[in-house]
């Protein structure tokens, strides 16, 4: 799953640790999501969308296949 998390985070000038603290997860999780090695759970995706005041589909894009 593709996502714009890194882009959004750098726009806000947050470090991965800052974002991790705001979402209540570890920095490793943020890194894994940004590098698209891990797809977040639905609650975490909602929390992320709420934090950036966006819709989930504006941040996360499902693969076509």
């Amino acid at each position, binding site marked *: 799953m593709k996502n714009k998390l890194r882009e959004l985070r750098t726009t806000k000038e947050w470090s991965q640790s800052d974002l991790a603290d705001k979402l*209540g*997860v*570890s920095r*490793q*999780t943020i*890194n*894994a999501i940004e590098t698209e*090695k*891990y797809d*977040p*759970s639905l609650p*975490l995706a909602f929390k992320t969308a709420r934090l950036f005041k966006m819709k989930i589909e504006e941040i996360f894009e499902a693969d076509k296949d």
Partner: protein
Amino acid sequence: MTRMLYTIAMNTKLSVPDELIMFDRQFSWRTAWKVCRWWLAAFVISAVFDLVLPDWKIHQPLRWRVTIVFAEFFAIVLFVFDAVKFIRRMDELQRRITIAAFFFSVSASFFVFVLWLRLEREGFFNAVFGPPFSPFSTTTWGIASVAHACVVLGGFYGLGFLIFKRRYK
């Protein structure tokens, strides 16, 4: 109420599974002690009575031997409670890695124990390495004790954790 629970959850420090992995730079004796103290207790009880003093143990009344067995397993149950508490405080990715490492550890240990015990029963180790040396007692090449299980499971958990952690790096 929901808000309170949410706030409590947010204020709780996340568990860091790396703090349990010896040789990792994040290893913490404090966390390892909090989570693994009953694991260590089970290991020590089993090591003392099954490895160091098996000849002494076998001559004790049945009630004492049964008490020792239950003490080992009671310690394991207490360890499971501490481990579950620790896992519940992890974030979702770390929980996934830990659970994958746990299943890896159980599967690999099962495989090793079955293979080892079959080979031991066929006399493989005695034929290749001779009788095992122990300063304490007459021993066998068998590894059917809680102490052995603790070491094998722990070793494979560490290995599994490192393997699965690399996948998300």
